[in-house]
Each structure stands twice: as structure tokens, then as C-alpha cells.
């Protein structure tokens, strides 16, 4: 029996979520210890006896037995989940209660509870994302640090602080309270969206890491979609946007690790299945009256997905979607993307005009693709020296070897 990829990481999230439900959020560290213990036990046993028929069930059962040991040993010394009250105190109720908490449906709810708890309003967004990655996706501090191109020390500090806030919240988020649930849902959407974007546009040099972040975000969205309260139209739109964009990932980076712009991608490499899934989700998202930025972004991605060649792209539709996006969620980046779409539709001169017309472009100045876009349009209208200057500026801001390599190529093209 072979282990499926990342099985341990996935199971880590499930086990921690359930154990935290049982032990109480104040005992998060204890839950993490029990999980580590279950993995070490698996490692010791499986290497001699082989992987069991159902490795997930084996791990869960091991975690459950450990949990029972811990509860029996420490129930007088520790305060466990206040939500479960006295049920854990008596030997009569202990085992059946724990059994019930380890049922498949309960585990799904536990992951949801944890996801909502991680999006605590007292935590900055980056900390929420790091916490979700750590607790629910089973990434270590080092793995998160490498994904976010941040130091081990800084990441550890951020996660330790975030865990403290979580542990002090006394109780896990109550997913049965529907008003609170709807109020917290947008924050959860943002965290999942940021996680996806970190994978898609992020600064990490390792393409493998980035793809995994995207898949984790899609997995979390799928979890939301399975929950009646969380499966809103907006959640569908978020899922759609991620599937449709992730479908292009296989063509975004080629075999030698080079970045390919949307315009130059080999579209036969796009993941049709994922795109199809995205389109289905977008249909479901559009069946109501809700209109979020995720709807619009998904719609933009769907137009790219529908074009077999770049020249078949419906730029009119894309420009008008960016117009909509500018009204519901204006940002310099959205404005830049809108300008690029206009340049595609009406030629490089117009593109440059629109980029220059962006109000308060200060923040954009630090974004390598702002300069790259200027360079691209200058290049297309034949002013290679100008283009070269812009690409140089972009190069100075590039965040990883892939981006640098891409910009070196563009600079070289200016000299032909």
C-alpha cells in the first residue's frame, strides 16, 4: 500500500482540529503533541508492518486512543474543553463521547470550527493565513517561512503569537450560531483567498511550494462548500475563481522553471478538468443576487479559460468586468489589470495612457509587474530603449529567481 501525497499533512490538520475540540482550545499545544505522537507511532509501526489498509483511519484511531489516555490521566489536573463540560469527567460517558467526536462528520465540523477560529478578528490577516496553514494544513514553521519567503524566526514569532491569541479565546468558534457564522465568513474567505494568491503570485522561488498552497486553498474552499451555512454563492464564487486560475498553473511555469505570461502560455497544458469544475462552481455562484469581487474575478478567469488562443480572448468582456471590479473593490492592482486589458483591446498607446491615469500609483511602484506592464506596452509600440528601462526597474524589484529570469529575457529581447 502506497501513501498518497501529503497524507500526513492533511491528517495532521484533521487530527489537531478534532483533538482541540476535545481538549479545548486552551490545550492546543497538547493536541499538537498527541498528533506528533501518532505520526511517530505510525512511522515506527508501519516501517515494519507496512502501511495499513486505511492509513487515515489508523492515524485517527491512534490519536483517539492517545486522547483517551490523556483525558484519563489528566482530567483532574487540567481543564479540558468547557463546551463538553462534565461529559469527559465520568468514565461512563468518556469513551462514547470521544467516539462520537471522532465520527467522520464531526471531524469535518471540527475543521470548519478551527478555520473560523483561526480567522480571529484580533489577528492580522497574514497571521490568520499562517495559522490556518500551520494548524489545518499541517505545514511546519519552516515550510511556511519558505512559502512566504520570510525568516524562520519571524514566522515562528508570528505563529506563536497567533496561537496565544487562539488559546486565550477560551472557546472554539461556535459554528452553530448562524449570525456569528455569517459575520465571520467573509474573513474566512479573505484568508483562503490570500492563501491562494500567495501560492499563485507569491514570492516563493519553489514552484512546488506555490502549487501546493493553491491546492490547499482549493481544499479548504471545498470544505466550506460542504457545509450548509458556509456554502453561500460567494463561497462558490471563491471556489470558482481558484479552480479557474489554478487550471492555468501547469502552463504558467515551464519545465525549466521559466515564468510564462498568460499571453505566451501553451493553452493545451491548461487543466481542463479543474477549469470545468470552476465553471460549474461559477454557474452555481451566479444563481443568486450576491455579487462579490470573487464573482467578478472568477468571471474574468472564465473568459480566459474560454479562449482557445490568446487572440480569441473577449477583451470587451474583460474590460467591463474590471470596470465592475473597480466599483466594488477598487485597488491600484485592479486598476493596473484593467489598464492592461484596455491595452490588449485598443493597443499599447491606450494601455500606457490608462496605466499613467491610475490615481495614487505609489504602492504600485513597488510591484514589479507594474513596471513590467509599462515595459511590455513600450516594447509593443516599438520604443525598445524605454521598454528596457522599465524592465530594469521591474528586475530590481523582482522577488524570486523565476521573476528575475523572466525579466532578463524581456531585457534581452529589447536589445535585438
Amino acid at each position, binding site marked *: 500500500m502506497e*501513501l498518497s501525497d*501529503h*497524507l*500526513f*499533512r492533511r*491528517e*495532521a490538520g484533521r487530527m489537531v482540529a478534532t483533538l482541540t475540540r476535545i481538549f479545548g482550545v486552551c490545550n492546543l499545544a497538547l493536541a499538537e503533541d498527541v498528533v*506528533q505522537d501518532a*505520526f*511517530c507511532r*505510525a*512511522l*515506527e*509501526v*508501519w*516501517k*515494519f*508492518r*507496512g*502501511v495499513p489498509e486505511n492509513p487515515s483511519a489508523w492515524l485517527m484511531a491512534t490519536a483517539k486512543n492517545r486522547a483517551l489516555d490523556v483525558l484519563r490521566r489528566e482530567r483532574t489536573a487540567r481543564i479540558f474543553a468547557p463546551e463538553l463540560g462534565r461529559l469527559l469527567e465520568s468514565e461512563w460517558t468518556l469513551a462514547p463521547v470521544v467516539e462520537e467526536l471522532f465520527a467522520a462528520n464531526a471531524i469535518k465540523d471540527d475543521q470548519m470550527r478551527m478555520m473560523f477560529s483561526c480567522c480571529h478578528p484580533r489577528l492580522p490577516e497574514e497571521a490568520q493565513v499562517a495559522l490556518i496553514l500551520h494548524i489545518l494544513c*499541517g*505545514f*511546519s514553521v*519552516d*515550510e511556511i517561512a519558505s512559502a512566504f519567503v520570510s525568516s524562520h524566526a519571524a514566522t515562528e514569532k508570528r505563529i506563536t503569537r497567533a496561537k496565544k491569541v487562539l488559546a486565550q479565546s477560551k472557546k472554539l468558534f461556535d459554528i452553530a450560531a448562524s449570525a456569528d457564522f455569517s459575520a465571520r465568513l467573509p474573513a474566512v474567505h479573505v484568508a483562503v483567498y490570500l492563501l491562494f494568491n500567495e501560492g499563485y503570485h507569491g514570492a516563493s522561488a519553489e514552484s512546488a511550494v506555490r502549487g501546493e498552497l493553491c491546492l490547499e486553498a482549493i481544499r479548504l474552499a471545498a470544505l466550506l462548500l460542504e457545509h450548509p451555512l458556509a456554502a453561500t454563492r460567494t463561497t462558490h464564487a471563491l471556489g470558482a475563481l481558484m479552480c479557474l486560475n489554478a487550471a492555468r498553473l501547469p502552463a504558467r511555469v515551464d519545465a525549466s522553471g521559466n515564468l510564462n505570461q498568460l499571453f505566451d502560455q501553451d493553452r493545451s497544458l491548461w487543466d481542463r478538468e479543474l477549469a470545468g469544475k470552476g465553471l460549474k462552481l461559477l454557474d452555481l455562484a451566479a444563481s443568486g443576487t450576491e455579487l462579490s469581487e470573487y464573482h467578478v474575478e472568477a468571471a474574468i478567469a472564465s473568459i480566459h479559460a474560454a479562449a482557445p488562443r490568446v487572440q480569441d480572448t473577449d477583451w470587451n468582456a474583460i474590460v467591463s468586468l474590471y470596470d465592475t471590479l473597480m466599483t466594488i473593490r477598487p485597488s491600484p492592482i485592479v486598476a493596473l489589470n484593467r489598464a492592461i486589458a484596455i491595452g490588449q483591446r485598443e493597443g499599447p498607446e491606450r494601455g500606457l495612457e490608462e496605466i499613467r491615469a491610475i490615481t495614487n500609483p505609489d504602492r504600485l511602484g513597488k510591484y514589479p509587474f507594474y513596471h513590467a506592464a509599462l515595459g511590455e506596452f513600450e516594447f509593443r509600440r516599438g520604443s525598445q530603449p524605454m521598454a528596457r528601462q522599465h524592465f530594469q526597474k521591474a528586475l530590481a524589484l523582482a522577488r524570486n529567481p523565476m521573476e528575475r529570469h523572466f525579466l532578463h529575457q524581456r531585457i534581452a529581447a529589447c536589445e535585438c
Partner: protein
Amino acid sequence: MSEFLYLYRSADRGGSPEQLQQRMQKWMAWMKELGAKGHIKDQGQPLERAGKLVKGKQKTVTDGPFAEAKDVVGGYTLVEARDLEQAVELSKGCPIFEADEGTVEVRPVMKMNM
């Protein structure tokens, strides 16, 4: 062919889920390779890290070894090899050496007919 016992010792219980899974996959690949080449007599068993120690004429029972101790045997495998030299060579592929202070003790099994 002679028989040899591998005794595995390591104190390394750390690592992220992803790293632990990779370590597991390396162990399985190594065992599989040994098996495919006909060197495995008995895959062996893992051993619990804690137990009891019974000692002396008084048969005093104490706790031990301790789970945290570095020299606890974590498991064993019975292998077949030409000679001690080959058994040692084969053991060098064991992923235990990637762990802190991981060791494989290679011990020839005494032959009965000598």
C-alpha cells in the same frame, strides 16, 4: 548465507508531517529493496519504547528503558547476508542515519551446528 540481526536505535521523533511521511517512504523503499534482493529473513517488529526492567536475584522490577533515552532499541529485523561485511554494507542504506544519532547494530546470529 548467514543470518544477522539489525537492532535500530534512534531518539529522533521530530519533524513536520511532510518530513515524517518522507522518512516513512524511505524506510519502506529500503525494506522493499532488501526484500527484493532476498536479504530479509524476517521484517521484524517495532518495540514499544518503554517497558519494565527485571533485575537481580531479588527480581526487582523497575521502569525502563525510558522513552526519551537515546539508546532504546526501537525495533529489529532479521536479515540474510553472505558475511558480516555484506550485512554492514546493506545496513548503510537504512534511513535511520538521517535521524539524529540513529544507529543500526549489526549482530551475527550464532549458528547452531558449530
